[in-house]
């Protein structure tokens, strides 16, 4: 109980201790923590390296923005529908992409997902009438008091915490154990009589749906969505976060997300060469810290 109570109290008390600026950063951390953990359910548990997961984060963001700006619903209702819409739209897109790609192995799966992300990126860029094209969609604001960081933080927490719990239950369930077995040896799992492709597709869709929810949460806190969210450089973000935190723990990627977001704020505030700094951090991570920040357990399938 204590192990759960302390972090819970810290998370609940955070907005009281932080300035508005840092509360916004805390919201960003929550959104990206969900993004990174959902991505890692695919990578760390399922052994599937998606290089197009930014597509779902972006689709979730655009789903939120379009619902708020273009659907013609009252602001309160539109806002209330955002989480469901983001989950549903991302899941639907993931069914399509996943159906065409989950049965490919290793690097080919990465490339396929990457290709579909770039396809969606060009759609976001060119479908100017719906997505605002290059300019993206700006001026998104949750209604009423939720527009303030203090309250929006609790709204985000109220979605991210249960979402993480659902993902945790998923990976601890028999489904999750089958998933880990798949990572280790898909052929053997198939011989046991498991429908490998269905398992992989289900994981892909669930992971994508929560990535979409994360994108929607972030879109409404930052106030905008840009096509750049789906661009190829965005594909690396969840991988960096997961690897930084450690892909073999459930919450490691959330820690990675927190460190990544805070580092970005601190470094990009001081220098315009944030990409250079991040590049050096990634190289150091890859070469020196292959198990990430939480890396005490050894890679079993290496």
């Amino acid at each position, binding site marked *: 109980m204590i192990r759960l109570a302390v972090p819970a109290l810290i998370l609940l008390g955070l907005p009281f201790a932080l300035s508005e600026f840092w509360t916004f950063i805390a919201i960003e951390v929550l959104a990206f923590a969900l993004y990174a953990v959902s991505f890692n359910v695919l990578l760390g548990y399922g052994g599937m390296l998606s290089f197009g997961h930014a597509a779902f984060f972006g689709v979730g963001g655009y789903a939120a923005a379009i619902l708020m700006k273009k659907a013609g619903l009252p602001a309160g209702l539109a806002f209330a529908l955002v989480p469901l819409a983001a989950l549903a739209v991302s899941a639907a897109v993931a069914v399509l992409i996943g159906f065409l790609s989950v049965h490919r192995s290793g690097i080919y799966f990465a490339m396929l997902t990457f*290709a579909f992300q770039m396809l969606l990126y060009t759609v976001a860029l060119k479908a100017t009438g719906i997505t605002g094209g290059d300019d993206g969609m700006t001026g998104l604001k949750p209604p009423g008091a939720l527009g303030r960081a203090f309250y929006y933080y609790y709204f985000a927490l109220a979605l991210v915490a249960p979402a993480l719990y659902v993902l945790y239950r998923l990976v601890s369930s028999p489904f999750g154990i089958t998933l880990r077995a798949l990572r280790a040896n898909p052929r053997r799992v198939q011989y046991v009589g498991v429908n490998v492709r269905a398992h992989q597709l289900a994981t892909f869709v669930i992971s994508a749906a929560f990535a979409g929810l994360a994108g929607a949460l972030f879109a409404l806190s930052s106030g905008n969505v840009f096509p750049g969210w789906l661009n190829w450089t965005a594909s690396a973000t969840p991988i960096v976060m997961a690897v930084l935190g450690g892909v073999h723990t459930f919450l490691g990627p959330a820690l990675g997300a927190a460190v990544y977001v805070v580092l970005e704020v601190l470094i990009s505030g001081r220098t315009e060469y944030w990409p250079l700094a*991040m590049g050096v951090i990634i190289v150091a991570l*890859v*070469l020196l810290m292959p198990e990430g920040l939480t890396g005490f357990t050894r890679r079993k399938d290496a």
Partner: protein
Amino acid sequence: MIDSVVQQLAWVQNPVVVARQLLAGVSNGMLLFLISAGLSLIFGVLRIINFAHGVLFMFGAFLAVSLVGLAPGTTGGFVSALIGASAGLAVLGALLEIGLLRRIYRSPHEYQLLLTFALVFILGDVAKLIWGREDNSVVTPQLLTGSTHAFGVTFPTYRLFLIAVGVAVAVALWLVLHRTRWGIFVRAATMDRGMLSALGVNTRWLFTAVFALGAALAGLGGALAAPIVAVGPGLHVQVIIDAFVVVVIGGMGSVLGALAASLLVGVVNAFGILAVPGAAVVLTFAIMAVVLIVRPHGLFGTPE
């Protein structure tokens, strides 16, 4: 509606326009070939997707800007820029392979992707530190400016030059890969690295050499592109995407596939701009998606 479509497609009947677009497409395709041949070769042998390949191309273009600046407009200055950019990138490529890539061949895929990705960020910013943030241009040497008349159509001479260089490089690559001992090793490595190594070939240095060759081709491509593009810090972004599309369509690891797909993508883009203005990019991604679904190992690739 129909009228506007017909109007937009009116150029089909104009052989001059068709010939011009075809030439533009083929010459752009040749530039694409230079970068994607290296990307494909590197994947085939090292099994690494080198996302930094676009940045290497950009470095080649920047090097050309600096080298041409020493003797602007002269043929000698331009030729030495081409050679200098290729050689410079070969050295940079070898250093990157020895210093970084060599350490991660046994790592999981995500580490390999992250490393070449980190190189994009690092080298991209290093280029800004060295060459600044402005767009530069390179003066075409006197000999290659102006236009050439053939078959009743006027072509820009530089475009013809690009095609000639592309063909020469393609032939040279084929000869190296199929008529030299080293080429046999490279092709063997794309099939079974472990076996090649067991047979006593020093694959460590083979990998270094392949990466250096790929980087040199990217550098040459960048230097050749310098006179017809704006050479700035954003140059690499589109280039790597196009090259990636080409390599996927052609088949990862296949140089012949890279050549065919480069020409295909170059020509489709050139005509796509006329047929569906603004949406030509979608066309190439659509081709890629179809190829990936129907023939996931690409037109000339070998199945996984």
